[in-house]
């Protein structure tokens, strides 16, 4: 019992150090539980949503309506449903896509309000409703008809409400989805039919063949290639990865810190430990006592962290549900994660602290009672350095670094970790900005893209003709890509080689994103299969373009038509600088670059808050780590500091000599953090985008590196300020009263 009192009193004496270590345990447990449990809950909710609401496996549209869908359903054991959609302009910049109330596939769930009851009612996706301040019960007019907003809904087909299945920037200000009864769409001429299908067997190919026997598939998008459905998976992967790696990193750092704290404590208490032996305490009791320091931090820290994690999980999931169009989510505590979150710090701390304590207790009690043995050997590294010619300050600092090398090294690692966290936020933002700027400003030189629902022939009245079709790689059917045929001299899309030379469309060009995935170089060939026609052919890549959006191949339009068996002068897409008056019924899709750019700006906006939050978190973690380490350094050097005071050194001079050099380790940690962040962010972004058809190149703006540098350096100086009092408080009596080295 008295030992317990000693334990709490020791913690109280060094409360700042123990509290900081405890805080790191809390942060790691909170992050672990919040992120992993939120990720697992999201996966569960998403699976349930997909299953209960019958998410499509693919969607397609054909040249003529299917004659006997029932027959196809029976023959291939699939669920097939014809659905209708119509894009209605609400104003110059806003389109609302009305889709028919489906019965079998992509059923909607009501988030707020009621299900559709009458033809005059409409259900909106929640992002669009919020962006346009449309509340339940309000009326809205579309194409001259007045609808009452019955509520908001989520449908598995538009979890991420993108205008195009291959898009990647949602913008609720400019685009939204709504559900109305099918009869309404039937009345409107321009409504466009498409089919959704759910497979039970692995007979996708045969099904497509059967459809193309009597018809032509103009567009086919598998669920896996549909960004509206798959984007969320990347984000969930990202959140889970963060939950698994970030807390482990923090725990490892905390483990080292606790070991240093304990080692220091035991070294100071050699005499006490020896006395405890002499008083009859058993080794096991002493081990238990010192293990209790780590155990108390681990148990209370992980308990508090898990509770905070649970509280944090809810807003995290809510922000997911808000960003994506998801129904209300069920939250399960996820006991395995709960238990791991609670036990992880203990699993991390106890074995190593046990080894540490045992090592100390191997010293004979008599030696312990004398305060340990004096070291008589000189460190080999210290001996190596002959510093006579250096000035004293440099000599002193070099000696100090050599002696405190593990501490200073660990300080650099701690800073590296905090820098990684900080830079990761900036790199994510800069990479996405680069991706968009590179593509929208340098690649796409048009304003409007019109995709027809049937092959067009001849020359378009305005704009530049092109044709696109979805393909899969013959050897790897999971790898889909888009081949676009363009006329040589096309100016709507402009590509540059990796060395910055402009590429002409008289050759086959693969973009960098796809080339990286397939490991293709100029001159390599690959076999591809058209997902619409089933046609397979070989393509030899002439150039790699420095573009990362989508998995793309560009080739001359003539060659595209020839390889796919399309009429020589046919095309499916028109790029134009001006708005074209093309009847709605002829179009499968219409998109505007400015929508995408404003969508990007919209999407990047919360990222800015996220970066500020991450920067604050990184600064706090950096301050905690640096505070403990520098405070420990001061404590370990207290005798030297005390002696220097007696010898006539001013506090600022002592600070410069004993602590000041650590800023170089802080800078070193930050500099090492830059390449480490590049590598780890690249790995993270690759895993996030693994199921998306984009590659995000890892880029960072030097200004942001500079900002991060100042944040870290600022954190260091805050730490120095916090520790200044500790240095000032060291009494000269320590050196004067010293009885042993």
């Amino acid at each position, binding site marked *: 019992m008295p030992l317990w009192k000693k334990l709490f009193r020791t913690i109280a004496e060094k409360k700042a150090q123990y509290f900081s270590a405890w805080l790191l345990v809390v942060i790691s447990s909170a992050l672990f539980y919040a992120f992993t449990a939120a990720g697992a809950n999201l996966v569960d909710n998403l699976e349930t949503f997909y299953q209960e609401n019958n998410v499509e496996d693919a969607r397609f549209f054909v040249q003529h309506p299917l004659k006997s869908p029932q027959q196809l359903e029976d023959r291939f054991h699939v669920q097939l449903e014809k659905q209708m959609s119509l894009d209605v302009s609400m104003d110059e910049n806003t389109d609302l896509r009305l889709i028919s109330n489906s019965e079998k596939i992509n059923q909607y769930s009501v988030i707020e309000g009621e299900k559709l009851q009458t033809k005059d009612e409409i259900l909106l996706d929640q992002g669009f409703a919020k962006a346009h301040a449309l509340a339940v019960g309000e009326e809205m007019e579309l194409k001259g008809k007045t609808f009452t907003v019955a509520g908001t809904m989520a449908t598995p087909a538009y979890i991420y409400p993108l205008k195009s299945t291959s898009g990647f920037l949602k913008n609720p200000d400019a685009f939204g989805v709504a559900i109305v009864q099918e009869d309404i769409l039937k009345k409107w001429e321009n409504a466009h039919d498409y089919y959704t299908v759910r497979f039970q067997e692995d007979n996708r190919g045969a099904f497509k063949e059967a459809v193309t026997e009597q018809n032509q598939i103009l567009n086919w998008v598998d669920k896996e290639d549909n960004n509206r459905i798959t984007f969320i998976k990347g984000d969930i992967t990202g959140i889970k990865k963060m939950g698994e790696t970030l807390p482990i990193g923090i725990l490892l750092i905390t483990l080292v810190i606790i070991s240093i704290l304990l080692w220091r404590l035991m070294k100071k208490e050699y005499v006490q430990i020896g006395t405890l032996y002499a008083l009859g305490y058993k080794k096991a009791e002493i081990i238990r006592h010192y293990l209790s320091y780590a155990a108390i931090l681990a148990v209370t820290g992980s308990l508090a962290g898990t509770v905070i994690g649970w509280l944090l999980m809810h807003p995290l999931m809510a922000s997911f549900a808000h960003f994506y169009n998801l129904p209300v989510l069920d939250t399960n505590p996820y006991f395995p994660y709960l238990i791991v979150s609670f036990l992880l710090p203990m699993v991390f701390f106890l074995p190593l602290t046990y080894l540490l304590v045992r090592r100390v207790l191997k010293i004979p009690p008599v030696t312990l009672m004398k305060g340990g043995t004096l070291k008589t050997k000189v460190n080999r590294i*210290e001996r190596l350095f*002959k510093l*006579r010619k250096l000035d004293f300050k440099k000599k002193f600092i070099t000696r100090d670094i050599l002696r405190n090398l593990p501490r200073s090294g660990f300080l650099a690692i701690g800073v590296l970790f905090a820098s990684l966290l900080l830079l990761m936020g900036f790199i994510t933002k800069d990479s996405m900005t680069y991706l968009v700027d590179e593509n929208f400003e340098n690649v796409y030189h048009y304003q409007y893209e019109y995709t027809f629902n049937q092959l067009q022939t001849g020359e378009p009245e305005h704009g530049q003709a092109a044709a696109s079709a979805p393909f899969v790689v013959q050897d790897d059917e999971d790898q889909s890509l888009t081949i676009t045929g363009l006329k040589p001299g096309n100016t709507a899309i402009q590509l540059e080689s990796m060395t910055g030379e402009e590429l002409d469309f008289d050759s086959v060009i693969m973009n960098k994103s796809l080339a990286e995935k397939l490991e293709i170089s100029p001159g390599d060939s690959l076999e591809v299969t058209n997902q619409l026609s089933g046609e397979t052919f070989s393509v030899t890549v002439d150039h790699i373009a420095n573009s990362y959006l989508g998995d793309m191949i560009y080739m001359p339009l003539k060659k595209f038509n020839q390889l796919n068996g399309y009429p020589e002068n046919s095309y499916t897409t028109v790029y134009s600088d001006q708005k074209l008056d093309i009847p709605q019924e002829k179009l499968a899709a219409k998109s505007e670059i400015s929508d995408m750019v404003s969508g990007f700006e919209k999407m990047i906006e919360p990222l800015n808050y996220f970066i500020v939050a991450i920067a604050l978190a990184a600064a706090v973690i950096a301050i905690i780590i640096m505070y403990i380490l520098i405070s420990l350094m001061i404590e370990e050097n207290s005798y030297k500091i005390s002696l220097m005071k007696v010898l006539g*050194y001013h506090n600022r001079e002592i600070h410069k000599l004993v602590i000041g050099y650590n800023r170089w380790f802080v800078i070193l940690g930050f500099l090492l953090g830059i390449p480490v962040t590049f590598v780890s962010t690249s790995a993270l972004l690759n895993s996030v985008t693994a199921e998306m058809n984009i590659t995000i190149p890892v880029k960072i703006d030097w200004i942001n590196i500079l900002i991060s540098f100042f944040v870290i350096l600022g954190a260091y100086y805050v730490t120095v300020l916090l520790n200044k009092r500790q240095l000032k408080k060291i009494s000269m009596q320590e050196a*004067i009263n010293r*009885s042993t080295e």
Partner: protein
Amino acid sequence: MSKLLEVTGVNKSYQSGGSPFQALSDVHLSIERGEIVVILGPSGSGKSTLLNAIGGVDQVDDGEIHVAGEDITRFHDNNLVDYRREKVGFVFQMYNLIPNLTVYENIELTSHISKSPLDIDELIHAVGLKGMADRFPRELSGGQQQRVSIARAIVRKPELLLCDEPTGALDSSTSKEILSLIHQMNQKYNTTVLIITHDQGITEMADRIITLKDGRVESDVKNEQPVLPERMEG
């Protein structure tokens, strides 16, 4: 000879175990320049408290301590630092060397902040440590470490050398060597030396012997025939 140190009516009390303990009571003493003075007294007599107060590492409750004409009890922290830096040298019982600095560097620790320090190599030679400049403290014997400690104190040419039980951790022959070295430094650099000890034997080398008891000066006796340390008995 002129006065270097004058202590007038100094009192100092501590809180010990919840009750006040009078460490120094109305202490008066003065020391001339170049003198070797031994302050003798048993444990708890207040000799260390007095040394610390004279060395500017501890404050007194009242009274005055004039060193080279300046009352250091009126000094603020920064003035006290400068005072320790310029006027005083300390020699400790346990040498108090910094273990990861070599002999040369330990001495440099004080020469670095001195206005006109002595040449370190010459000093190392003078204290009998020739060829040991690059050794670390743990590679030296106790006597050698104390020599470094003396060199470190002397390098800045202090007016007052304060020695706290300088031979307390050494055997008798090494003790004589160390005392002899202190004597040499006193002669060579005209440094005033104040040694506190409970070892009666050391008094033989002193010009004056002050005895403290219960925080008061019990006696202040001039030694008419100081003996060179190497000739001391015991």
